[in-house]
C-alpha cells in the first residue's frame, strides 16, 4: 500500500492557518469548508477458491474498459532465498518473464505490447511473497490470463536468456548503488535487521554470477505453488467470466500440499548509533533516521500510522513544516512506516545541504523528542486523522489501489470489514495512544542515524551527536 499520497484537506487547512496573520489578506478564515463527513463506500468483492487452494477475489468496476490483476504467491519471495544465494527469488521472478517453451522472450514481449498489456513478475530480496501483476484493456483479458498461466507454469529459464539477464543486471546494480538514497537505505536495513533477510535491500553480484539454470528451475518448482496463493482482479469484468477463465487457466496448477513457510521477526536490537557513508563530491547529506517498529498485524499499527502522519508523512507534518517551510534546510523530508508480515521500521528520509547537516539533524531529532515528550494537540490530531481518511477515500479512484487494499487485507488476515471500518479505526486513535507509541518506538537509544555525504564537510558536524562510524561508498562497476 502506498504511503505517498497526502491529503488535500489537511494541506488546505494548514495553508489557511499559516497565513492567517497576514493583514493584507482579508478572506482568510472564511474559507467555505463543508462540514459534511466523507462517506466512504467500498465495493464488495466476490471471492471463491479453486480446488488447488488458489483464493480468487473479484472486484467488478465498470468505470473504465480496463482490468488490473495481482497474483500473490506467499513463500516465493526473497525471504526464502537459500543463504548462499541472496537474490535467487528475485532472479527467478525476473527470468520467468524471459520466455516459455511456446513463447520466446521476444515473442512474449511483442504479444503483450501489441495489446499494450503489462505483466510483471517480481520478488524483492526481503519479501516473503512473489507477485505477478498486470494490466490490460478489457477485451484482452482472456489473452493476458493465458499468458500469465504460461509464464507461471512453464518458464523456460533458457541459458542464453540467463546470460543476457546477468549482463544487464550486474550493471543495473552498480547504477542503483551510485544513488545516495540507495546507499543510506541499504546500510540502515543492515544495521537494524541483520542477520534477518530484511537486512538485505538488493541481491549481491556474487549471487547473480553464481546462479545456475538448475537453481532457478528448483526454486520455481518448490515455491510457485497455489496452496496459499491469491489472485485479485479489479476492473471491467464479470464474476462469471472471471471464474470460467481462471478455472480454465489455473485449475490445473497442482497443489503442493507442503506446510506453510514460517516467517519470523528480525532480532530485537536496542542499540542505535551514527553511521556515515563517505561519498566524496556529494553536495548534500542524505539521511535515513529511524528505528524498528511493528508488523502489519500489530495492535499499535494504526496508532503508529497516525503518529507518523503527525510527524512527517506529508507536507503538513511537523518535519516538513519545520525543516523545509520554516528553516529551508531541505526540499523534501518524509517519514515512512513500513510493516509487513514481520516487524518493519519507522524512518525519516531527507537530503540537506552539507553545511547545515548538524542543524538539520538537531531539528529532526528535536521533533522526534517532542513527539515523545508532549501529547499532540487535539486540533492537530483531528486534522491529521482526517487527512489519512480523506487520502484513503481519494485513492479509491484507482482500481489498482483498491486491489492493493484487498491484497493487504487477505495477506495479513485482517478482519473482512477492515477497510470498511478503517475510518473508524483511524479516528478512534487518541493523543495518549500517539504519545505512547512514540515513547515505545522512537526511543532515542534505539535510533539509527545513517548519513551519506562528503566526509570532509560532514564528519565533524555529525560527531557533535556522538561517535561516528565511517563506511566507504561502494558503487563498484562489476566486471
Amino acid at each position: 500500500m502506498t504511503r505517498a499520497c497526502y491529503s488535500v484537506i489537511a494541506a488546505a487547512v494548514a495553508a489557511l492557518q499559516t497565513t492567517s496573520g497576514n493583514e493584507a489578506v482579508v478572506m482568510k478564515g472564511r474559507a467555505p469548508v463543508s462540514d459534511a463527513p466523507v462517506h466512504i463506500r467500498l465495493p464488495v468483492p466476490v471471492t471463491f477458491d479453486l480446488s488447488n487452494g488458489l483464493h480468487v477475489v473479484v472486484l467488478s468496476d465498470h468505470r473504465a474498459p480496463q482490468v488490473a490483476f495481482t497474483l500473490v504467491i506467499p513463500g516465493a519471495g526473497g525471504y526464502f532465498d537459500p543463504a548462499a544465494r541472496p537474490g535467487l527469488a528475485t532472479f527467478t521472478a525476473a527470468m520467468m518473464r524471459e520466455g516459455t517453451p511456446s513463447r520466446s522472450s521476444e515473442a512474449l514481449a511483442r504479444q503483450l505490447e501489441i495489446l499494450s498489456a503489462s505483466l510483471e513478475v517480481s520478488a524483492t530480496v526481503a519479501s516473503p511473497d512473489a507477485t505477478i501483476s498486470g494490466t490490460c484493456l478489457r477485451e484482452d483479458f482472456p489473452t493476458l490470463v493465458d499468458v500469465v498461466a504460461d509464464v507461471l507454469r512453464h518458464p523456460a529459464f533458457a541459458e542464453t536468456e540467463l546470460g543476457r539477464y546477468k549482463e544487464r543486471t550486474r550493471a543495473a546494480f552498480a547504477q542503483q548503488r551510485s544513488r545516495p538514497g540507495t546507499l543510506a537505505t541499504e546500510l540502515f536495513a543492515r544495521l537494524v535487521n541483520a542477520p534477518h533477510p530484511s537486512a538485505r535491500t538488493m541481491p549481491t553480484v556474487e549471487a547473480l554470477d553464481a546462479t545456475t539454470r538448475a537453481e532457478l528451475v528448483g526454486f520455481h518448482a518448490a515455491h510457485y505453488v497455489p496452496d496459499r496463493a491469491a489472485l485479485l482482479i479489479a476492473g471491467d469484468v464479470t464474476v462469471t467470466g472471471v471464474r470460467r477463465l481462471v478455472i480454465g487457466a489455473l485449475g490445473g496448477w497442482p497443489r503442493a500440499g507442503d506446510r506453510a513457510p514460517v516467517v519470523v521477526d528480525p532480532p530485537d536490537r536496542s542499540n542505535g548509533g551514527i553511521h556515515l557513508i563517505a561519498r566524496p563530491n556529494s553536495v548534500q547529506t542524505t539521511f535515513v533516521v529511524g528505528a524498528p517498529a511493528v508488523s502489519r498485524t500489530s495492535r499499535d499499527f494504526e496508532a503508529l500510522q497516525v503518529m507518523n502522519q503527525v510527524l512527517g508523512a506529508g507536507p503538513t507534518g511537523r518535519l516538513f513544516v519545520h525543516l523545509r517551510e520554516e528553516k529551508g534546510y531541505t526540499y523534501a523530508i518524509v517519514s515512512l512506516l513500513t510493516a509487513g508480515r514481520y516487524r518493519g521500521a519507522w524512518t525519516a528520509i531527507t537530503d540537506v545541504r552539507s553545511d547545515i547537516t548538524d542543524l538539520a539533524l538537531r531539528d529532526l531529532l528535536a521533533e522526534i523528542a517532542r513527539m515523545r515528550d508532549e501529547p499532540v494537540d487535539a486540533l492537530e490530531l483531528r486534522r491529521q486523522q482526517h487527512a489519512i481518511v480523506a487520502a484513503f477515500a481519494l485513492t479509491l479512484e484507482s482500481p489498482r489501489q483498491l486491489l492493493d487494499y484487498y491484497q493487504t487485507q487477505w495477506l495479513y488476515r485482517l478482519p473482512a470489514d477492515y477497510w470498511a471500518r478503517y475510518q473508524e479505526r483511524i479516528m478512534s486513535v487518541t493523543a495518549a495512544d500517539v504519545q505512547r507509541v512514540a515513547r515505545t518506538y522512537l526511543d532515542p537509544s534505539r535510533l539509527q542515524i545513517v548519513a551519506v555525504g562528503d566526509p570532509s564537510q560532514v564528519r565533524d558536524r555529525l560527531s557533535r551527536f556522538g561517535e561516528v562510524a565511517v563506511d566507504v561508498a561502494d558503487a563498484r562497476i562489476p566486471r
Partner: protein
Amino acid sequence: MNGTTNKDRTLYYETLPANQLELALFLEADRMRSLAITREHLDNQRSAVDEERRRRYDNQPYGRTDEALDELAFDAFASAHAVIGSPRDLDAASLDDANAFFRTYYAPNNAVVAIVGDCRAGDALTAAKRYFSPILSSPSPPPVDLGEAPQMGERRRALSDPLAPLPRVDIGFKVPNTGRQSDALRALATILGGGRSSRLYERVVRDQHRATSVAISLDPGLGPALFRITATVAPGATADRVEAAVEAEIERLQTAPVEPWELQKARAAARMASVTERQRSASVAIRIAEDAAFFGDPTRINGFEARIAALTADEIGRLARVYFVADNRTVVITAKPTSDTHEP
C-alpha cells in the same frame, strides 16, 4: 494537491471530496488575488528550490546532463535554460522580480481552470465565476520567442560527472511539438524505444549488450522539443559503439517502413494511455486545462486515439528522414572524469 512548473506553464491541482469544491475554488482564487510575496516567503522558498536543485541535479549521477543537452541544442533562451534556474539566478531574484512575475502571469486572463468530477457543470461554473470574476485582469504577457533557426551541424559535448558510475549517451533531435507531427513522433518513440519489444531494447540492450538501458523522451509543450534518446553504456562497451548501434536503428527507420505490428503497438499504447488518463479526475483536469491553454481546444483529449490510429508507416518513415539527420543532432556524453582534471 501539488504544483508543477515546466517550460510552458505553471499548474496547481487539487483533488477533494465532491462536497469541498467551493473550498478549492476559494483557495485558488485567493492565491490568484492576494498571494503574500514577502521577503520571508521568498527567502524560504529560494532555499527550498536551492535544495531541490542539489537533490535532483547536483547530487545525482547524470543530474546535469539534461540541462547540458538543452543548453547545447536550443538557441532560444526560453527553450535552452533549465526551469529550475541556476544558483546565481536564484540568488539574484528580488522581491520585485517575483511580484512582477506574479502580476504578469498569475492573472485570470492568463489562466485556465478545469473542474472534473462528481458535480453539475452549471453549478461548478457558477461557483467558479463567483470566486474568480472579482479578480482584476492584467495586461497580456509579452509573447515568448520560441523560434529556432534550423540547426546547421551536429553539436556535441563531453560532460564530466564524478558521480556517474557508467558513461551515458544522450542524443537529441529537434522536432516540432504540436499538431499531427507531434502525434507521429509519439508513435515513433513507442516503436523505437517503448518497452521490451522496442527496436532499441531488442538490439542495443538485449542482443548486443552495448547499453544497460535505453529510453526515449519527448517533452510536452508549445515550443520545439527534443526527441531524446538516452542510453547507459554497458560495462565493457563504449559510448562510440552505443552511438553507432543507435544510429543503425535510426537508419533502419529511414530506409524501411515500420512493420504493421509496430503500428498496432503504437495504437494500443495510445488507447491504453487514454483509458488510464481517464481513470483519475486529476489527470483529466490537467489534460483539459493544458489543451485549452495551449491549443484553445479543451476537447482535444477526445481525438488522441483517432489521431494515432490514422498514422501510416509512410508518415513515420518520412519524419525519421526529415528530423533524424546528423545536422539536427545534439549529443552529450556523460562520464566520470578519467584524470584529476575537471571541466571548468
